[in-house]
């Protein structure tokens, strides 16, 4: 019931089932602090807790509704996926640690993988038995990803990789990396790239943690020094890397249908938390919820999350997006990440100077979730395509404006 389309009896029954199962099975919060998202998983105990949860959901049959059954999924049922995601969000269940793999590795494998690759990799991915990371960005190649220089050389037994990847979330726990590397340095920038499924347990791999502005870990740099991999780790054809990476990025940016509606549920939960904060906080002798300035800002967030949800529903009616078919999909990540940033910023503003109280202070409102969330929100407005790059892309592909160069 979050701005999506009305459900059939069968789906309503499925939703009831999921709700009941969650009520019985949702794990108790752990004694240690959990990260807010998959981007900040630091410790082995955090990892274990989250892996167990994902495996539990998979084993119960509620994960894999976008993967065909012969590869270990539950068959392609986007409505069921949406329902599960919504109910998980409502129940404040832990997130899926293999988020990256679920969101954009799996669709990439389904689109470009061989039978052998799909059969080998998808089931353990779904169950979080094997964690995935993404080796795209490099110190010298961020927004200008195609200028990357990590080199893949064909050897007798397969491939050998040398280079330096950065912002690699979960690399410290990953078994596999989707790796974009240059196979042909003489070819044109985009044509010389290839896409690989790289085994992280190879020799010559060094994972070094990076710290976020919040002091949390979770992402890394990965140095590859003649790291070997077998021949079948190539995905698609050599020279097809850029094409595959672009489709991966589209998946990452939530171009897949229905992403908006799921996101809207998560956002509604966030908004409820913000409302709760507004009601509890006092400023100058009255509740923040009665301050006209804050009321207006809260309502603007409510309007915008409703727009995100309604846009999701509109996306599934082709005639209603026919004039600009790429507008809503390309806008999605941009609009969502900025919404999240505005919400967490508003919460910090409501807190006044108390926003500076940090995680272990007993007086930190909501365990410092808001300043932590606000700072972490930049991970989403910068990663996966900066807001600036996304505006360029939308301007060029949707509005037909000339490239900036």
């Amino acid at each position: 019931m979050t701005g999506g389309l009305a459900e059939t009896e069968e789906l309503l029954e499925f939703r009831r089932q999921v709700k009941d199962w969650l009520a019985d099975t949702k794990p108790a919060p752990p004694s240690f602090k959990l990260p807010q998202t998959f981007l900040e998983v630091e410790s082995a105990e955090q990892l274990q807790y989250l892996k167990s949860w994902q495996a539990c959901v998979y084993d119960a049959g509620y994960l894999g509704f976008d993967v065909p059954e012969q590869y270990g999924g539950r068959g392609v049922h986007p409505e069921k996926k949406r329902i599960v995601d919504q109910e998980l969000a409502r129940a404040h269940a832990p997130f899926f640690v293999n988020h990256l793999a679920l969101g954009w590795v799996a669709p990439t494998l389904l689109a470009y993988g061989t039978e052998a690759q799909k059969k080998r990799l998808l089931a353990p991915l779904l169950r979080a038995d094997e964690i995935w990371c993404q080796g795209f960005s490099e110190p010298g190649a961020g927004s200008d990803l195609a200028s990357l220089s990590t080199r893949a050389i064909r050897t007798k037994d397969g491939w050998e990789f040398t280079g330096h990847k950065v912002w690699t979330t979960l690399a410290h726990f990953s078994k596999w990396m989707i790796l974009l590397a240059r196979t042909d340095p003489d070819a044109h920038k985009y044509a010389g790239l290839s896409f690989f499924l790289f085994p992280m347990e190879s020799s010559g791999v060094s994972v070094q943690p990076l710290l976020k502005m919040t002091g949390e870990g979770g992402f890394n740099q990965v140095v590859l020094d003649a790291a070997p991999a077998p021949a079948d780790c190539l995905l698609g054809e050599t020279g097809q890397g850029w094409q595959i990476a672009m489709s991966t990025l589209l998946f990452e940016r939530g171009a897949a249908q229905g992403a908006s509606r799921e996101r809207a549920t998560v956002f509604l939960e966030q908004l409820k938390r913000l409302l709760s904060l507004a009601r509890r906080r006092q400023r100058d002798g009255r509740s923040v919820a009665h301050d006209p300035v804050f009321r207006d800002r809260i309502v603007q967030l409510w309007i915008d999350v409703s727009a995100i949800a309604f846009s999701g529903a509109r996306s599934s009616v082709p005639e209603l997006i026919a004039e600009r078919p790429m507008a809503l999909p390309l806008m999605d990540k941009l609009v969502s990440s900025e919404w999240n940033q505005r919400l967490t910023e508003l919460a910090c503003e409501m807190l006044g100077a108390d926003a500076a109280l940090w995680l272990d202070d007993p007086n930190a409102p909501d365990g410092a979730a808001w300043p932590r969330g606000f700072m972490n929100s930049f991970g989403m407005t910068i990663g996966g395509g900066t807001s600036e790059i996304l505006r360029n892309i939308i301007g060029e592909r949707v509005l037909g404006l000339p490239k900036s160069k």
Partner: protein
Amino acid sequence: MSQRHPSFEPTLLPPDEGELELPALPENLGFSEEHQLLRDNARRWLSERCPISEVRALAEGRGELQRGLHGELGQLGWLDLAGPGDEGLGPLHIALLSEEMGRSLLPAAYLPSLWALTLLDVAGSPEQRAELRPSIVSGNRIATVAASEADDCWDPAQFRSRARPAVEGFVLQGEKTHVLFAAQADVVMVPCREPTGTIGIFAVGLDAPGVSVQPELGVDATRPAARIELDDVRVARSARMVGDGLDAWRALESTACTWLAAEMVGAADAVLELTRKYATERFQFGRAIGSFQAVKHPLVDTLIAVEQARSLTLGAAALLCSGARPASVAARMAKAAASEALALAVKKGVQLHGGFGFTWDCDVQLYFKRMLQSRGLFGDAVHHRRQLAARLLGAQS
């Protein structure tokens, strides 16, 4: 077609977190091939019948408002609002037509007549409907609604216009502002406070004694408005609509907000397209100015605002079609978002046309002027966000 009209409850209800559960939208948003055809025909007809050059001629005093145009809308069947148990156009049809009309800045009393029909359908007596409906639908009679009073008052609970019972009916006293097309209309629907505290809605002929129409000298030549003074205007008992006035008004607010939002989305989209095109054709520093991010990014922000507003508007229209209660919230959201989207579009539209954008000759100014009026009709974004805040957080103490 369901005839339940969603009412927007007074703001004194306790805050309801249930409001945060966004409504389930109807299958396909209720959009069908029939809607597609209507929209395509409308765009084609409007581009021939109402090119921007005609709008400009009107604004420059070289043309006149054409009463016949209204009759053409009737002939096209576009004024045929589905009444109780009738065939006809539903809220989504009207929203799609309104968007196209906003795109063209059509200078006709389209929405005001539909507002009047909405009131008639919800609260009119069978006799009133029999007398007024057919001619409004055919376009032979132009109807409008007096929706506001001085000091930007759009809430009937605050209206000062009064109706008191008299021997043969009622006597109306008061002043109304921004009555669209009042000088061209034949009948106006007027809400007044009654001695018992209720709201009565009266169908009043504009030539009735005591009714004085003073045209407002507005910036928007495509949508003239007037102040109406009611000075001891005597009306028959049969002029009063029989249904609950406040309920009827709340129903009107939901549809009026949704259709105005649609119109503003269409206008914003037109400005976006004008500016986009200019950005590809205007060359400076050896390249099209659209290649500069300082030009590209504000256009993208305008696109985002327009598309978000469009989604809200279509969703609200779909909910109105299904008679769902959450339609009233969605309608207010749509109006607020569309007002802001049109404002952004025209501001950036002027700015990004550079020096030319600042002149009379750039067409963006025509849309700018439509924005100045439209964003305030039936309450501006601030007004609706305040109502929504009361809904979400309780009345402000």
